């Protein structure tokens, strides 16, 4: 849901994995005869390698660059969440609707619906549009069809309230809370 670039994440994992495997095999070839024999036909691993004094600073700078890039990537991950559900601009004025309103509408509409344990709403900025994620926790043994109907009615009310239809993701979950919740009424 967040802005994180998933393709790049996969590429990073893949490259780091390959590097780890290569280094591991190189070290392994030095100590394990079996690995050495297996690798021998393809590459010859040098028995010793000189580290020239001139390359020490290059290594140090390369390490610094890697550290900075890695930390930047780690600390800028996620993002894209916002508290503004709708922003309407007309000239210099802007009207914004907070996510709390959406939350209240959804909570109110889903209150008392059988099999619904709770709901969470958050808004994300996706491709310069605002999209709401509505997570509805469904009781264990509950009926998703009935819950989905109730969510549809809630969305109708929400669309009327906001005056437009915001892109939404409805996620029916069975969280830990819903697993513990007891049946309030029996379907018969």
């Amino acid at each position: 849901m967040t802005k994180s670039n998933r393709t790049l994440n996969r590429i990073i994992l893949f490259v780091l994995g390959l590097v780890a495997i290569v280094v591991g095999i190189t070290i392994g070839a030095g100590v394990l005869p079996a690995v050495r024999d297996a690798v021998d036909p393809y590459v010859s691993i040098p028995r010793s390698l000189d580290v020239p004094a001139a390359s020490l600073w290059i290594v140090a700078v390369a390490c610094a660059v890697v550290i900075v890039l890695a930390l930047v990537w780690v600390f800028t991950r996620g993002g894209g969440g916002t508290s503004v559900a709708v922003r309407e601009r007309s000239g210099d004025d802007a009207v914004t609707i907070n996510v709390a309103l959406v939350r209240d509408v959804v909570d109110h509409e889903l209150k008392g619906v059988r099999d619904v344990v709770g709901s969470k709403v958050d808004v994300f900025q996706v491709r310069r549009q605002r999209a709401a994620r509505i997570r509805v926790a469904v009781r264990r043994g509950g009926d998703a069809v009935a819950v989905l109907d109730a969510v549809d009615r809630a969305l109708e009310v929400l669309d009327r309230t906001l005056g437009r239809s915001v892109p939404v993701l409805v996620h029916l979950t069975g969280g830990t809370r819903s697993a513990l919740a007891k049946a309030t009424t029996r379907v018969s």
Partner: protein
Amino acid sequence: MSSSSVGGNAVERRIRRRSVHRSRSTAVSVALVVLVLVAAWIGTESVLRAVGAAPLLADPQTVVDTALRPDAAFVTIAEVIAVVLVVLGVVLVVLALKRGRQHRSPVPHDRGAVVIDTRIIAATAANAAGSAAGVPEGNTSASSRGNRTDVRVVPVSGVPVDEAAVRAAVTERLSQLDERFGRRVKVTLAERGTLS
């Protein structure tokens, strides 16, 4: 079934796809933090060597020598490090290449993108089976995997349960979510019933 065939506008398709597939953010962060620590150590040792100060653990030349051709004391350590690195590398590559589906299914819907946890789909099947068989809720259980759903019903003693009717009810209910869930439903009746 891929999520793109379920419909919806571009933004909703995107958030549904990103909900069904796992983000690898945590794995990447952990791997990068380890990388930072290793790089910090190598960088520090290089600088210490360059300015001629005493190394923290070992200077770069010693490290390279030991890694390529360890002396007797370091053989075991080198073996362990080699194995750990290879295993770690394989894990990372597998994480990078696997599809990373979570236990959720996209469901076609008129308004909004809808994603339902697999256990909720199973719960819905158990719910439908329970009302069709007329048994208490605790007497039915179900498990879903992909598009197939297995339902188990424990009848109440003395009250016969019509397996076909139960299957029809489950199929009917699941088809309201999506037609594909109703295609492969298996109903198992327990041999022994329970007292109600």
